[in-house]
């Protein structure tokens, strides 16, 4: 094990909630649920569009779409929707950089949009996403898929697809890691005050 650099914090007290294998299985299960709940491919069903919320909702949406394609042979359009400019807590944090917004070529008009994010917490990100969505089109319906629901909602928002429900303390932090953004797949629970 390499020596810890000087000045680095003590190893965080953290627990692995999901391993890389768990993450893959969870996403596969969510993909099955999406296919079932949206009647994907059935005649008369609305076209489905997955929109990931940066940073980690974006790779999650791509993976979900890939698993959906694996199981149903239907390629659902995937995009990204940055919500930074719609947040209600901008003044409480240092200036945030903007994420990428990229709508699929067909747009979202009259589609069934599934918002995809890594962790559902207060619900404020999703509120911002609903506002952002209104500015880019009028979907027929909006659903929400999250890898982890950690509770502590501050708004009347719930997810339609949940990878894992994790009861947490408000002071704890849940970190979702993806190979695309972090070099490996895992979901970690950090105890309070470890600064991670």
């Amino acid at each position, binding site marked *: 094990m390499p020596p810890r650099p000087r000045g680095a914090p003590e190893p965080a007290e953290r627990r692995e909630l999901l391993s890389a294998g768990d993450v893959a299985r969870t996403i596969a299960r969510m993909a099955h649920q999406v296919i079932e709940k949206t009647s994907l491919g059935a005649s008369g069903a609305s076209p489905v569009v997955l929109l990931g919320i940066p940073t980690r909702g974006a790779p999650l949406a791509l993976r979900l779409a890939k698993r959906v394609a694996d199981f149903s042979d239907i390629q659902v359009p995937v995009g990204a929707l*940055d919500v930074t*400019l*719609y947040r209600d807590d*901008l*003044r*409480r*944090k*240092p*200036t*945030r*950089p*903007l*994420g*990428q*917004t990229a709508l699929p070529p067909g747009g979202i008009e009259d589609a069934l949009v599934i918002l995809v994010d890594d962790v559902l917490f207060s619900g404020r990100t999703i509120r911002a996403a609903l*506002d952002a969505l209104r*500015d*880019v089109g009028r979907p027929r319906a909006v659903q929400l898929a999250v890898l982890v629901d950690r509770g502590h909602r501050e708004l009347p928002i719930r997810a339609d697809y949940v990878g894992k429900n994790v009861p947490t303390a408000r002071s704890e932090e849940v970190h979702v890691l993806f190979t695309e953004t972090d070099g490996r797949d895992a979901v970690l629970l950090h105890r309070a005050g470890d600064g991670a």
Partner: protein
Amino acid sequence: MKHLLGTEGLDPATALAILDTADGLKRTLLGREVKKLPTLRGRTVITCFYEDSTRTRVSFEIAGKWMSADVVNVSAGGSSVKKGESLRDTALTLAAAGADCVVVRHPASGAAHRLASWLAHTNTSVVNAGDGTHEHPTQALLDMATLRERLGSVEGRRIAIVGDVLHSRVARSNVHLLTSFGAEVVLVAPPTLLPTGVADWPVGAAGSLRISHQLDAELPTADAVMMLRVQAERMHGGFFPSAREYSIAYGLSEARAAMLPDHAVVLHPGPMLRGMEISAAVADSPRAAITQQVANGVHVRMAVLYHLLAGEEDAA
């Protein structure tokens, strides 16, 4: 960041963050019918212009409005300035009236810095929209945004800034910003239109600054030429024998533009004097990025307002 007063000493990381935000805003608004973001709802921006302006004032106003800020325009002509109110009293009045940001243009170099020092005890931010012959940072940022779009990056690129450097705040702001991103800047002007000590201007470590009096010699190796307006309103004395002679020696004619490499871009901060520093044919040619500069100006100013007003209050 509380104020944006100049590009001299502006941390390249901050400048890059503003440019990236401007890119993001441009992409976000692309193709939208309703160009309105809720980001600065409830914030008040006051533009206070002691000098005439079309594009700067308009683009700050549009930038504020597209982000849902309330924008109020004050011009010196129609305000208490005409009755003799000092800049300091005007500034304190605007801050007391509830301005979260004052965008100021003033004929005196250093006016924006003075304003910022008078407002240091308030939460009001100051943006320098041009102070005398000193700085015009948002112009340099929008020029940089345009050059990034046209050339990819300015690092190692040769940018010729041509004309009335002496009176140009645009040239100063651009020299600081471009060199801090590694550009080779060449100032091309007659000796009478160069400031004394220009060769010793501090430049960004990554870039370089050179002086030339021969436009024809610089054109074949330039990646971009930035033409400056001859600022007759600031000239008290003879800086060149005649407009015609200036135009012949330093104007960008069609024949001169043909000497540029194919990829080279022509910029002008506006307002242009067609036939003086730039010919109409060059100004309207595809290599001219003049309207692109104006369009980028709105996004860059949105980004500046975002960085000044959207985050939490700085302790400063």
